[in-house]
């Protein structure tokens, strides 16, 4: 690390950054590091019950070794929950980012009408809480109140069942697509706007169509922001929680362990087993970190090899 300015000999300047960083470090330690450490500690503990578990000394916390982990990793419910989350992500992420990229490119096309209106309308769902979005869509999925079903019935067609079986994946992914497309569109559109116009001026003069310019010039140029949006979408997908929680009252086919995080919540707060919940959440965190760093490494390799 080369300092741009000659290093000053004044102690104030050497100490200043540490002083500036102190509040963040203290808060980070208290609300991030300490809870994580505590979760790791709890994941190696368990409650030992003597006799009937009555009396003040009947329940004691004991060292449990890796038993919480082995039961978490062999838990079929966690495995199927992860499978469900993967399927949900496979539906959600390509749809959302494909839509965001398409709309961003449309916004960036010359001579488009109603540009400001569309941009705002598509970005608007970002301001709607996930709970409220799930609530609104939940009502729109109910055949008794939904305009979609009403119109289909008028046309004599039975609508799809979005609250049971595989329809549920579509229902949940749609809520997230609705909420996230606009935000990602803005991110991609912003990086499109940052490209120098003369990049495709030459291509236009050579008679390239807007479509060719989009495919051959614009998309490769905004690849970094596509990587960024993909990365954040992937992390958000792993943490799906509030949407299925909200839809649960509307359907009987959403179990309380539909997604891994819902299982953590149930173990900790419904069944009161904080130890196995801690182990499961540590496993989820480790998987998230491995995926994130693996992804970042892959991207950095690619971009080092490329231009």
């Amino acid at each position, binding site marked *: 690390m080369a300092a741009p300015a000659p290093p000053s000999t004044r102690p104030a300047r050497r100490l200043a950054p540490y002083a500036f*960083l102190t509040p*963040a470090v203290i808060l980070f330690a208290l609300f991030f590091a300490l809870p994580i450490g505590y979760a790791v500690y709890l994941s190696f503990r368990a409650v030992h019950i003597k006799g009937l578990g009555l009396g003040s000394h009947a329940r004691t916390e004991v060292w449990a070794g890796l038993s919480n982990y082995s039961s978490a990793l062999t838990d079929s419910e966690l495995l199927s929950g992860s499978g469900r989350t993967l399927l949900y992500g496979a539906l959600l992420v390509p749809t959302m980012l494909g839509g965001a990229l398409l709309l961003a490119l449309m916004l960036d096309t010359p001579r*488009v009408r109603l540009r400001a209106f569309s941009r705002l309308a598509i970005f608007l769902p970002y301001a709607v809480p996930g709970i*409220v979005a799930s*609530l609104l869509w939940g*009502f*729109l999925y109910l055949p008794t109140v939904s305009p979609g079903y009403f119109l289909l019935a008028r046309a004599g067609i039975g609508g799809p069942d979005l609250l049971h079986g595989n329809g549920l994946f579509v229902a949940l992914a749609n809520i997230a697509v609705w909420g996230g497309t606009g935000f990602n569109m803005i991110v991609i559109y912003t990086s499109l706007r940052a490209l120098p116009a003369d990049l495709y001026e030459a291509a236009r003069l050579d008679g390239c169509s807007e479509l060719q310019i989009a495919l051959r010039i614009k998309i490769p140029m905004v690849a970094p922001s596509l990587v960024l949006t993909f990365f954040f979408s992937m992390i958000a997908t792993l943490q799906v929680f509030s949407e299925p929680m909200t839809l649960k009252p509307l359907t009987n086919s959403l179990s309380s362990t539909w997604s891994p995080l819902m299982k953590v919540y149930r173990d900790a707060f419904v069944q009161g087993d904080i130890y196995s919940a801690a182990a499961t959440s540590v496993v989820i965190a480790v998987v998230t970190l491995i995926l994130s760093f693996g992804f970042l490494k892959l991207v950095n390799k690619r971009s080092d090899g490329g231009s």
Partner: protein
Amino acid sequence: MSTDLTRRAVPAARRRTAPAPGSTPGGPAAPRRRTAWTPTLILLLGAVYCLVPIVWVVMAASKSSQELFTTFTFAPGSGLLHNLADLSHYRDGVYWRWLANSALYAGVGALLSAALSGVTGYALAKYRFKGRTALFNILLAGVLMPPVTLAVPQYLLMAKAGLADSYWSVLLPSIVSPYGIYLARIYAAAAVPDEVVEAARVDGAREFRLFRSIALPIMVPGLVTVFLFQFVAIWNNFLLPYIMLGDDHKFPVTVGLYSLLQQGANAPALYTLVITGALLSVVPLIALFLGLQRYWRIDLLSGAVKS
């Protein structure tokens, strides 16, 4: 322009062969001011999709309980004022309290978060010191932690500290925003010129004064963005308050609506209250959004990944 000679020859050829960019195939040679219809149409479709649930909730909130399940969904009803009165009377106006709580959590939390991000981002961008990269990476890893992994031990630690089910339990964890720090760092690095800082140093300014009177004013636009992001994130947050709070007088509006919906599953009469509440909860955020549109600097996000 160094390739003038070759460029000159191209337009003539282009006029003969290629259609004007953006013109519809088969159309006559296009004048410059022609609307690009296909992109406009795609954008409008996206806008309609994003507005459907919003339009629906506006209509549904105006219906009485009877109308909700009997009249066409996109027809306005006759009961909006009645629904608002019902909502205000529900448990002595607890709904308004939820809105006020949300405003408090989001307003105070985002303000503190922006301040902390500003001072931390500035220190990380403008000083070279031991442990800078390590510290930044640790802070960034905080982004990747699944909220549930944090929330369960955070709750247990808060309970130990006697702070569970208090305003502090929701407010304190939302102050450190790794994301906000990251944005503030990018902004400080790009916007605060090293020469100005150095010149002030030569004039003998103290480090803190330097930050407060020189760097901070320059960083305001970036920090407003951090404030807005954080405001939306806290306002829309469900998991943390849901886990921390038990007393519904401290609920933010997301958790409040969720608890209403839970009861609504057994009492459909509450549905109109939920829908009216959902509409009202979205209004302040959309207003904030439209009012402060100019201050959103989303380009900060796009400049994040260097290829």
